[in-house]
């Protein structure tokens, strides 16, 4: 086999495996960009405000303003059975992150209650003892913007020091093993071990 064929084989194999790896982590990446441009009301709950550590001082915030290096967003609904089943694993993910000093404060989780009122989000938070902030969708802005989104849907953001961000993960469906999911998030985010200094 000559060099030309070998080169072509490498290109085609790269297309097969590279594209599958990419599609495994990124679907509808525009959801991530659209969500990042939206404004949400700053939570009234002080614990949630402290966790988010928002850089802005107004009544509203955008996801890239969260004080973190990686933000994992779960788009959920209290009416979604899969989100209900997902809740315990997500709580374990939160605990797993916070138990690692290298990740605590650098990797954060936020839930976006698509189509859910503040009351409904509050019900979900209470029923499943969710320790991280859940943001309501009072004016149905998420529903109207993220057309066709299914729940749960996870989006991973890498926040850069200059205020910019990259969407490294956007995919429907949940997970059962929080350690595997966290490992995937860290790998795809490119966060150095121990986080950025």
């Amino acid at each position, binding site marked *: *086999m*000559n060099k*030309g*064929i070998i080169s*072509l*084989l490498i290109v*085609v*194999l790269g*297309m*097969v495996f590279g*594209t*599958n790896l990419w*599609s495994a982590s990124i*679907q509808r990446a525009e959801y991530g960009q659209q969500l990042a441009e939206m404004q949400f009301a700053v939570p009234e709950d002080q614990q949630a405000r402290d966790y988010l550590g928002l850089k802005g001082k107004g009544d509203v915030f955008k996801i890239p303003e969260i004080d973190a290096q990686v933000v994992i967003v779960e788009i959920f*609904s*209290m*009416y*979604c*059975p899969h989100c*209900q*089943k997902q809740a315990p694993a997500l709580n374990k993910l939160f605990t797993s992150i916070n138990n690692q000093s290298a990740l605590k404060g650098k990797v954060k989780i936020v839930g976006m209650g698509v*189509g859910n*009122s503040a*009351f*409904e989000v509050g*019900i*979900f938070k209470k*029923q499943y003892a969710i320790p991280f902030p859940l943001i309501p969708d009072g004016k149905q802005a998420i529903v109207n913007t993220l057309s066709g989104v*299914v729940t749960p849907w996870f989006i991973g953001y890498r926040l850069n020091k200059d205020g910019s961000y990259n969407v490294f993960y956007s995919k*429907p469906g949940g997970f059962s093993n929080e350690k595997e999911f966290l490992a995937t998030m860290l790998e795809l985010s490119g966060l150095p071990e121990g986080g950025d200094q």
Partner: protein
Amino acid sequence: MKRSGWIVVLLLAGVFVLSQNISAVSQALEGSIYQVGKLKPIDSVLKVKVGDTAPDFTLQAVAGGGVTLSEYAGKKNVVISFVPAAWTPVCSDQWPGYNIVKDLFDANDAILLGITVDNIPTLFAWTSRMGELWFPVLSDFWPHGAVADTYGVLRTDGTAERAIIIVDKKGIIRYIDVHDINERPLLESIVKAFQKLQE
């Protein structure tokens, strides 16, 4: 390039194309909900009003047996949740929400009755996907939509409205919300109605 080389490349290209289809199939598996599009918000005329005695009914439950509204008289407030049809977008994410707030209903001495005009096998298949529901799901399939029609929430296409009707322990209708079929009623509207029951 030699002919054999092109064959290998074409075979691998075929694998690439097939691999993309596999990804599309896995997404399609999630698409078991029939998209109905935007519907006329309300397509019926109520035949009952707040203060009326709730028309009694007996309907077959998915879990088996019949459920009769008047059996709750003197025991429970009854929240009747009519939803238009199984396997449709808004309906499919309404009752699962009610399924995690049994404590809210218990605190207000209330039971929830979920009703659609679908038949029992359809309702069984649909509600099985919601997990184990704590409230009865009832079929108003035959005579088709008779109970929905009695209350005036049967639409002209044979589906029911998305309606919440609350009947107190005396059998009196205390709350009616015939909601825009395209939207899910807020949970807090039921909670506020519970509060009014105490007044």
